[in-house]
């Protein structure tokens, strides 16, 4: 039996050896921010995007990330794309494959039609070729304060292990699914509301907020509410549900956003009652 010691991967027909399967035509979105300058123009303006097509040889194990690497190594060294772990955990290689958001490392040419079009993640600004600007997302992520806050020190980090930080498996179940988010932004590319409404926090940032707010050790929900209950917080979501469909980790951001709406609505209702009581 072939394969690694102690595992059964050799029992899968395709895992033990890669078989060449032919070539596929891979069309890649290209964009140079300064191509006009590079071409000698005095106008420092971004160039127009264009598409380049390549015939890429593939076998049973060639992922889209491998195909892009092959193009960069053998056809065009200037092609820019992000890739890191190659095992669906770092969240770097999100892009559009034939119009749908995918992780390049987990999408295989063998499963795609003969014509494959690769483009940067939709709804996000393109920096160069397949690289998108993740800064707006990182700002949204910071806004929801993605860390555990203790009751005593709700403004800062609380990483000290103490009796209060003990948790039962049942309590962990409340947020565990949301903790699987790898910030790959496939959900942002799938969400039309992100496209319409740029200040929208977006599915992943709200999911991370709920990951912490549903944690029994956390006391920071009130600190996150100003971001969640803002006009660009949870409310632009109209429950299209595409974020959950494309999520490669089964996180279900649509569920997190609906739960966040409940948290925001409850806080508003409680606020109204308290205001009436004061009068």
């Amino acid at each position, binding site marked *: 039996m072939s394969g690694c010691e102690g595992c059964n991967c050799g029992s899968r027909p395709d895992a033990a050896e890669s078989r060449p399967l032919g070539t596929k035509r891979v069309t890649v979105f290209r964009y140079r921010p300064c191509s006009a*300058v590079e071409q000698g123009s005095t106008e420092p303006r971004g160039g127009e995007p264009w598409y380049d097509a390549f015939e890429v040889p593939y076998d049973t194990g060639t992922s889209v990330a491998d195909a892009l690497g092959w193009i960069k190594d053998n056809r065009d060294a200037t092609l820019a794309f992000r890739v890191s772990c190659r095992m669906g955990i770092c969240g770097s290689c999100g892009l559009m494959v034939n119009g749908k958001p995918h992780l390049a490392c987990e999408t295989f040419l063998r499963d795609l039609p003969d014509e494959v079009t690769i483009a940067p993640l939709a709804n996000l600004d*393109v920096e160069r070729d397949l690289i998108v600007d993740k800064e707006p997302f990182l700002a949204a992520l910071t806004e929801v304060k993605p860390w555990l806050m203790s009751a005593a020190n709700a403004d800062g980090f609380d990483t000290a292990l103490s009796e209060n930080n003990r948790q039962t498996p049942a309590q962990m179940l409340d947020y565990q699914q949301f903790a699987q988010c790898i910030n790959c932004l496939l959900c942002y590319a799938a969400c039309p509301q992100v496209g319409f409404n740029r200040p929208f926090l977006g599915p992943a940032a709200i999911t991370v907020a709920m990951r912490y707010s549903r944690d029994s050790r956390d006391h920071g929900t009130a600190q996150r509410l100003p971001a969640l209950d803002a006009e660009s917080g949870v409310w632009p979501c109209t429950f*299209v549900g595409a974020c959950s469909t494309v999520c490669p980790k089964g996180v279900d951001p649509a569920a997190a956003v609906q739960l966040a709406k409940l948290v925001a609505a409850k806080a508003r209702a409680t606020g109204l009652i308290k205001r009436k009581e004061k009068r």
Partner: protein
Amino acid sequence: MSDLDQRPASNRRPLAQPLPRTWFLGTTEYRLYALREASALFLGIFVINVCWAVVALSRGLETWERWLAFQRHPAVVVFTVITLAMVLLQSVTWFQVSPKAIRVRLGERQLRASWIIAAQYAAAFVVLALLIWRARGGRS
């Protein structure tokens, strides 16, 4: 000073990717969502029609008969059938997605989504049965 002079010393020129106007035709999921949103239009018009029925009823038999005659017009019948289909689409899709917002934990397990969906159908049928019973004058 021109706008160019105001730019920071950077070669960054992020390219915006605006959503195409026909984005809602892009995938089956988007199309279904657009249909669900569009159903609100039919439901809204239907509600206006029902409000008109109440007003007609309050004005006397003649106006009420006129309203009834209007309901028999083929265009209104077609509209009512489409509205019924839209209501069913709304109900079925909302029942399907509601477990996302309703999370019930039973000890160390989550209650399955299928149970929450089934409970909603059961509640809907109970309400429907009660309404039919009332409409028949409280007789079984």
